[in-house]
């Protein structure tokens, strides 16, 4: 992604607006149930597990693992230039939570399933769009 961010057509429902503004302070937040403590994505009005309405955005570490991805090579949206990677990232706090995102900060051909990634935010108009870049490969300690 270059200095000019691509058109992203963000038009959230009320419950999900925080997802696109959370990055203003550099922190990724996900909706979490105040009663059963599970994370919920996409955000909704009621906890799907315990039906509580005590839901609010809570900070997460912003790290996770690529569950799968595709390298898009066709232009679908003028200004959104291929190639780019769309990935589903499982977050560390709860791997059943999958975030769709673009992987940045590496060549598209270097992306792999299982790759460890970390959030960053793209300023795009009034929004702060969560994107992910690879984390340095951890060396196992002998």
């Amino acid at each position: 992604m270059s200095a000019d961010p691509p058109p992203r057509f963000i038009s959230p429902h009320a419950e999900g607006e925080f997802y696109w503004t959370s990055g203003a302070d550099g922190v990724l937040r996900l909706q979490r149930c105040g009663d059963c403590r599970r994370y919920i994505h996409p955000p909704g009005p009621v906890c799907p597990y315990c039906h509580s309405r005590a839901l609010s955005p809570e900070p997460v570490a912003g790290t996770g693992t690529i569950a799968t991805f595709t390298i898009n090579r066709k232009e679908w949206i003028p200004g959104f230039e291929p190639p780019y990677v769309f990935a589903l990232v499982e977050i560390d706090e709860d791997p059943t939570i999958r975030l769709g995102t673009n992987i940045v900060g590496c060549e598209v051909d270097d992306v792999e399933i299982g790759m460890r990634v970390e959030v960053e935010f793209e300023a795009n108009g009034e929004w702060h769009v969560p994107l992910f870049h690879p984390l340095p490969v951890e060396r196992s300690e002998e």
Partner: protein
Amino acid sequence: MEEPLERRAVISGAAQSDIGRRLYRSGLDLTIEASLRAIEDAGLTVADIDGISTYPGMGGPFGGCTGAELHDALRFSLNWRDGGAETSGQLGAVHKAILAVGAGLAKHVLCFRTVNEGSGGAMRASGGGGGAMPPAFEYLIPYGVTSAANWIGCYARRHMHDYGTTREQLGAIAINARTNAASNPQAIYTDPMTMEDYLGIRMISDPFGLYDCDVPCDGSTVVIVSHRDYAPDAPNGAVHVNAMGTALRGRPSWDQFEDLTTMAMRDSAASMWERTDLTPADVDTAQLYDGFTWLSMAWIEALGFCKKGEGGPFVEGGARIAPDGDLPLNTNGGQLSSGRLHGFGFLHEGIMQLRGTANVPVADCEVAVVGAGGGPESGCLLLTKEIR
């Protein structure tokens, strides 16, 4: 088990409109053409039809035509009408017609799916059309993924990663479709395709290249669902509905389905087999959705023709899925080569195989399975030549 209600239904007629890449005809026009052909094929008249059922029940290039438009255009007098996309995939329109007939709400239901995406795409490119983002895509569109090629490509890649599935194995599905399309006068693409062609074509959304993707077209498919009491009077033979698969047991989402190596067809297929004594070994031909090559493979696995993850080796080389193989697949060329009729093309071909009138007939075809849909859209039908 009490007899499943769907056994009360037969498919007494089936037909298609002209089909083409770009016909520049309205969806209603195409729907009327297919409807009149199907009604005649069933040995009926407009006055005999007392139900209409359609997917997705909307106009425009994707929707094609509404049930109400057709209702009025031919001045039907109906006891029941239904249309919508909130159902068991494209075949949900047929499932609901079967239920209506079984419940006695209607005797003969005209089911249709019309697409006008070939011409519609051209019209959009010239400045028409456009629309708001559907809510389900709120977390996808911002990342530049507007196409099912992107969403389904993610599942295909995970399948390749977990099970060692190869592009050559996906290519066997594309080449099989192209080979069969050569005998289908309504097919869009009929030039022979080699594995070299398949592997060499430009990538769209890796691991999918252009030949992994189906081709938008214009066309309408109509089937007439009737009560089985009518079967002896159907002039071209009635095909029996043995079982239908409607289950949607996972999250209804393109990106949040629990298992990234299958889709909702897992549940459609399981629920279909729960309603019959027939088994995958009884199936003579499979007509399985190929909006993308990998979807046919996922359907093959979901229906139990092989174990989960073994779809790649199953189709490799193409012999097993050829018209003279163990499981003849998409014998009309599928959507990959014969056009995206959005599920109903497979249904039409399954019916033609059971009647023995397909362009590439499968020998002694007694049982056909039809599966339509990808992602959270899914449904299937088990059809038989005789009552089973």
